[in-house]
């Protein structure tokens, strides 16, 4: 009986535990989303979360503008190596609806999930008022930044996908299935909403960042104005302004998505926005970048100084020309992918790869030293451009003296030499800062700079433009770099946009030439008027008309902003893409050892651009999940 009692008691004790409290294991203060807005520090993290969806504009994989267009290529074998093949797939015509490459809609295949970013922005905007310990100034500024981010993400989507569903307010998770089946908004509505957000943002954004060590790279007013200018230019351009190709593109309920009536006032708005942005930048001290070394061991030739001004406007961090550089997208990988094997003593260094290869059409795009297109220059032998020619002392800052290379490489404008590496080309910097004694390239098969370890340039060209001149190829596998945040917008871009908008609005006018010539001057060229009058076969008549000047502005823009992620979008918005991108991607015959055999144009592949390629396909499954969503035409 004694034992019975003991066991009964112990059983009762055990059963005592059995109340439901046993299963209440969660302490009260497990983090919830509310915790993000209880302190300033947490809210700041949420602000940074909103920033984290910013597309990496300087990333070779996730910015489609690098490898999806016709500017450059990476050989199939090399591209697969490093997982950089996504853009190449688009360039080669393998874009698809099954699993689209560089998909910013769903955040797959190299893209970021921008709709998630927009949702986070909305959450931030809904809750920022709750944060108790934040200065009103900061609250306003952060709100303005998030307005900007929300606008920018939608602009990025608009450029890729055309009309998009506008998520002005977040839908609750408990929404019904019908409520979440959102449809696209017409292009004009999208543009207006984006501009509205940017206008709201601009009010409270600071003109400059005061705490540069902690905040440089955050959104400022000039950035908002510059992006607004770009949005309005895009909206005014032929692709979106009165484009009849998409006249029948509509939502399932019959709502038209493109306005096929041309509206000239869109250019006017764009021009006003550009001017507003430029004026503010000037006021804040932005100017085109010139290379003026404060102290230099060597006295450099004017030629190299000009080239360095051009190179540094991109690669010198925070130079006065930069309006917006993205600190979350550094250019390191681009530099590694672009550094050619210039040092014959470090042939096996694998710290860099030099595999980003500009296409032959980019080499032909740059002007002659007279500042006019190579096919128009009446002093330059266009038909003999593939003939071999040996460099003399006069070429010494451009081509290694005594080296034989194609005539195409002779007598070109400074931007050609600043932007491109080629067989025989001088490569200033990278540890050799005396321009009398520089590296040069020898990249024919069997030469010191040719393929090693599976890495090579598929065309024979290299993008010197990305490479900061202070980078040094060291021993082993070391490549020491001076990294820089990727410049998303620089002043020259705005100048050329402004010129473009003005010309579209009213045709040639002194202000148009003023802004193009500013850019040309820095590039070491004479003015449009002087160059065309003196050297072009077409003479001064070309720049006197709106159409002729449009061509000049377009080419100037393509040259000045080459490899900067602009050409791909510009060709599309000008509706030039079908003309330009339906051609071969060519290079030199890089497997050859002799100059005679090497300098033959070799087709690498044929690029095609069809109507459907203007816009990204929406992933097939998304259309099935949301039957109110329509696919882009042609997909």
């Amino acid at each position: 009986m004694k034992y019975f009692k003991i066991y009964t008691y112990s059983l009762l004790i055990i059963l005592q535990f059995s109340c439901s409290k046993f299963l209440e294991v969660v302490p009260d203060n497990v983090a919830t989303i509310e915790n993000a807005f209880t302190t300033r520090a947490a809210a700041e993290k949420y602000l940074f979360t909103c920033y984290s969806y910013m597309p990496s504009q300087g990333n070779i994989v996730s910015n489609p503008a690098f490898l999806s267009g016709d500017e450059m290529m990476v050989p199939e074998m090399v591209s697969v190596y490093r997982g950089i093949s996504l853009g190449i797939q688009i360039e080669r015509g393998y874009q698809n609806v099954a699993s689209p490459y560089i998909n910013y809609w769903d955040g797959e295949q190299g893209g970021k999930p921008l709709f998630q970013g927009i949702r986070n922005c909305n959450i931030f905007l809904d809750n920022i008022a709750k944060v108790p310990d934040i200065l009103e100034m900061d609250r306003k500024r952060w709100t303005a930044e998030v307005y900007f981010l929300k606008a920018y993400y939608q602009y990025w989507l608009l450029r890729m996908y055309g009309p998009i569903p506008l998520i002005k307010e977040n839908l609750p998770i408990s929404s019904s299935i019908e409520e979440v089946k959102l449809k696209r908004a017409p292009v004009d509505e999208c543009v207006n909403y984006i501009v509205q957000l940017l206008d709201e943002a601009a009010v409270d954004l600071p003109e400059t960042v005061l705490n540069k060590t902690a905040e440089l790279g955050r959104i400022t007013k000039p950035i908002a104005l510059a992006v607004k200018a770009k949005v309005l230019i895009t909206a005014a351009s032929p692709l979106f302004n009165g484009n009849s190709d998409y006249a029948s593109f509509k939502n399932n309920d019959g709502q038209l998505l493109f306005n096929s009536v041309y509206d000239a006032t869109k250019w006017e708005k764009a021009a006003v926005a550009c001017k507003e942005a430029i004026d503010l930048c000037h006021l804040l001290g932005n100017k085109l970048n010139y290379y003026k070394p404060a102290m230099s061991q060597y006295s450099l030739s004017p030629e190299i100084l000009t080239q360095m001004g051009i190179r540094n406007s991109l690669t010198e961090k925070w130079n006065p020309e930069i309006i917006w550089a993205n600190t979350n997208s550094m250019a390191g990988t681009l530099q590694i992918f672009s550094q050619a094997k210039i040092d014959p003593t470090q042939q096996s260094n694998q710290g860099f790869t030099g595999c980003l290869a500009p296409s032959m059409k980019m080499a032909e795009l740059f002007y002659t030293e007279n500042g006019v297109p190579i096919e128009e220059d009446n002093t330059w032998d266009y038909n003999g451009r593939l003939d071999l020619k040996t460099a003399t002392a006069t070429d010494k800052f451009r081509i290694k003296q005594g080296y034989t290379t194609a005539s195409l490489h002779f007598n070109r404008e400074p931007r050609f030499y600043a932007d491109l590496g080629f067989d025989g080309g001088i490569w200033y910097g990278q540890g050799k800062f005396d321009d009398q004694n520089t590296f040069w390239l020898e990249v024919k098969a069997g030469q010191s700079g040719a393929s090693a370890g599976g890495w090579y340039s598929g065309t024979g060209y290299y993008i010197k433009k990305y490479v900061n001149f202070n980078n040094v190829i060291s021993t082993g596998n070391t490549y020491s770099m001076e990294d820089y945040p990727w410049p998303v917008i620089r002043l020259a871009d705005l100048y050329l946009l402004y010129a473009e908008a003005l010309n579209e609005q009213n045709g040639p006018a002194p202000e148009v030439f003023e802004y193009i010539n500013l850019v040309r001057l820095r590039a070491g060229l004479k003015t449009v008027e002087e160059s065309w009058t003196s050297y072009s076969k077409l003479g001064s008549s070309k720049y006197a008309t709106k159409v002729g000047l449009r061509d000049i502005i377009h080419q100037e823009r393509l040259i000045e902003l080459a490899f900067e992620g602009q050409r791909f979008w510009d060709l599309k918005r000008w509706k030039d893409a079908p003309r330009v991108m339906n051609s071969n991607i060519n290079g030199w015959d890089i497997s050859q050892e002799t100059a005679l055999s090497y300098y033959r144009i070799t087709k690498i592949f044929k690029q095609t651009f069809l109507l459907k390629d203007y816009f990204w396909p929406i992933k097939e499954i998304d259309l099935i999940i949301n039957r109110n969503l329509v696919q882009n035409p042609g997909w």
Partner: protein
Amino acid sequence: MGPNPFFTKIMIIMKLITLFLFVGLMQVSASAYSQVLKVEFPQKSISVKDVLLTIEKHSDYKFLYRNDQMDVNRMVEIKSPAKSLENILSQILNKTNLSYKILENNLVVITSEQQKITLKGAVKDLQGNTLPGVSIVVKGTNKVAITDYDGNYTIQVTENDKILVFSFIGMKKQEVLIGSQSVINVQMESEASILDEVVVVAFGTQKKKDLIGAVTTVKPSDLKIPSSNLTTALAGRVAGLISYQRSGEPGKDNADFFIRGVTTFGYKKDPLILIDNIEVNGTDLARMQVDDIASFSIMKDATATALYGARGANGVILITTKEGKEGKVNISMRLENSISASTRNVELADPITYMKLANEAVLTRDPLGIVFYPYAKIDNTIKKVNQYAYPVTDWQNELLKKYAMNQRANLSVSGGGKIARYYISGAANMDNGILNVDKRSNFNSNAKLKTYSLRSNININLTKTTEVVARLSGNFDDYTGPIDGGASVYNQIMQTNPVLFPAYYPTDNDHQYVQHILFGNYDLGQYINPYANLQRGYKDYSRSTMDAQFEVRQNLSFITEGLSLRGMFNTNRYSYFDVNRAYNPFFYNVAHYDKLTKTYSLGAINENTGTEYLGYSEGQKDVSSSVYLEAAVNYSHVFAEKHTVSGMLVNIMRNNLIGNAGDLQNSLPFRNLGLSGRFTYTYNSKYSAEFNFGYNGSERFYKTHRFGFFPSVGMAYTLSEEKFWEPLKKIVSEFKVRATYGLVGNDAIGSAADRFFYLSNVNMNNGSYGAVFGTNNTYYRSGISVSRYSNIDISWEKAKKMNLGLQAKFFNKLGVEADYFTEDRSNILMDRASIPTILGLSAPVRANVGKAFAKGIDGTIDYSETFGKNIWLKVRLNFTYAASKFTQYEEPNYDEKYKLHVGYSLSQQWGYLAERLFVDDAEAANSPKQNFGVYGGGDIKYKDVNGDGQITPLDMVPIGYPTDPEIIYGFGFSAGFKRFDISCFFQGLGRESFWIDPNATSPFVNNQRQLLKVYADDHWSEDNQNVYALWPRLSPNVNANNTQMSTWFMRNGAFLRLKQLELGYTLPDVLLKKLQLTNARFYMNGSNLFNITSFKLWDVEMGGNGLGYPVQMVLNLGLQISL
């Protein structure tokens, strides 16, 4: 050279045997003590009477004899020295028919030799069939007889003999008292009589006769295989269990197993495993010693599992361990030594073909491409100009041995008295990998897994009604082996170029001073040298599980007959850690090769980063602990001899903590709380009815959904007990039908990391969502992310289980047991499919919306028979068929109805229909567009099923069988002839598809990946445009078009293998007696000896994992001894 390791092992075994024999003999001699006499006999001849009187005078002995039997005046001579009574008496009684016996108090009885009585009889089974070959032993003696062909025997006994023991394989041992009769006829009962068996069920036992639920029990001896992993024994042995083994690597060779297939989409698909009622994981089951198992039950239907409520939906494996029995010490020992070798190694292309085809791969894709192997290199390799400048390395040969030796030893001691009983056992296994270790290495990097286990079960009767049980068990793994694990060595072999460098260079004149091995590499040392990776260091890991359990059983019959109380406390502690020690290998390449003299010089690739000494790094450390409490009330009583009533209530609580959970929510305790009950009623062993329930709580759900009630009912009807069955009884000796229906739950839904569905999971410091600003990118803040949205409605997954069962026995020889089952799962957690991306959610929204259905049959047929005196035979067949299908599945509203999951198996795969390879680029260009990147002639052509002009996921149709086999079967026989026995077991599976992984087998990737011989022999090439070739057009890298999920690489996983073959010999009793053993058996067995399948690339059971560590074939020698 050291001593031969195998010889050393034998010596150890011999020593062990000697030790145990010695222990046994000690006991025997102790009982044979007798007094020393101090008696002198002066005369040479003396009468018997005087001798006895003299002894009585000088010692404590007294003699007792009958005068009519002994002539006390007979004169005898006692030879000196006569120091012992035995000695003297044997002299006196020599040449008489007298014998003596020393009784208590030194009373010595002398009587005439006992009368020899001849006993006769016949032995039959219950059906009246005569049983030949039955052995009859007089208990306590070595008198033995065996029945003849007609089942008759004769045996000589004396008056002192009391008991005859009848034994026969397959029959219950029977002891018969010898009375005054001279004829003893015996009816023996089959041991496997399904009616009297006791089956372990949830929280108790039931007589098989009364059993209603679908419970399969397995004889532990059927699970004895030459492996230290119990899970590998399950396939085909257990009706209702789907099982297969994908890897043969020691320590990672656990088989996958599911009870009646998979019917959930959640993370936990495998059954609940309980050892002595304690939840354990698959590895604990793998380490379980068969010899320690008292019972092994698989519970399959609702009545059997409902008591486990929330955790029983996937079925339950319940193991109880042996307990000591009252009686003398029983020592049993098993020693095994086995040789294991891969069942099949993957064949690779020869190096010359490799280089040629690697070049072909480049040029066929890009005629301007740069080939990796200059033609001069190929030529010089063919000519074998210099084996180091033009190396050819057979990495399989460099790294792998042909076989490995494994040892297992197992010892158990049990016994006890009235108060306490004990069962103590220990086991040690040593599994060796099959990797080659360089002779110059001074440490062993071959995989070596030592596992030990200890178990001690002590039962103590505190009072007549109170019993306590203390169980302690532990199992421990000590591993040393290659840093990346054994499977990785196999993987690395596949990733290593065969023609760029040798495993190592011989030390040449330039490097005489170096202490290290000159490992080979190429270019900048970026290539994999698996030999260097294997030799460079080793990993030690140590894993231990300790289990302590205390149980009290209180019989309360003094309150009312049949009432008892039980309480249990258990705690389990788990720990794991590993450490790596390794040096950085020095790599060399051929820096210069002189074509004229054909000599080479070596260049150091990494003279600055290589080390000659070991470095150290700490690895993972896992710890966890759990506590379990159980309290139960039992009642069982028979009223009026016909009405058997029983009832049980169990309360359980479980708390589990993980030491390194990784995040806050996972670090919170895992808990379960439940009350379960069972009520049964049986009428006269004919009708039984049962009601079970489980009422369980899980902390994963919101308050209002936290508890679930899971009831089940069942009925059974034993027709063979009915009067009307009597005429049938000769043919169908037993016949029983049963039916159950009930509800079981599952709280292991979603993923294990989803702890609390009713809470959102917010990461306040997520680096992936951070941003950085500042002149020099110095101001960084991490971001905030949501990985789960809260949903208070999420609750249990429910399974409605129905089972119809049948048990029958024909002619008392052929037993059939079959079950038909259905299972209806609902409330399966799923992602909502209607949430578009544009909503911007960062985690899926989920709800209990999925439904699935499964049905199948499982059954066992066994048959036993004896032929003549010495031969017996047993045959057994197990069969399981389980097929599942989705009945409700939330997915987009596809126009292509074949995309919908409903109606298809839960492991059904969707893929493209591969028609053939494209004839040429032109055909590829004119066919529906395939959206997977570059393709052309010789690449796989897929069918445009929906006819939209392109190949997209909408063209994926259900292909092949499910990846979990739907059919598992096993059959085998065991037979004996005299002292020899043989058994053989086949196992197979069917209705399973698997896919050769085209990503993993794509050759030449990174200029390293090996080329399978079958691909080399059979691929599309421009010269041989075979559109049905095994491998498409070669490519220097993975071609995304050809690696899509499709029918091209689909294979049938069906196979039938000889899982086990065993030959045994039991020592004759005479010899056993001499050796003081109760039993000794030598045996030889082999597992995975051969395999019948249509798939030849690798062992088909590995499925798509064919490049991993192969499944092992084992040859084993064993010895089992009982004392």
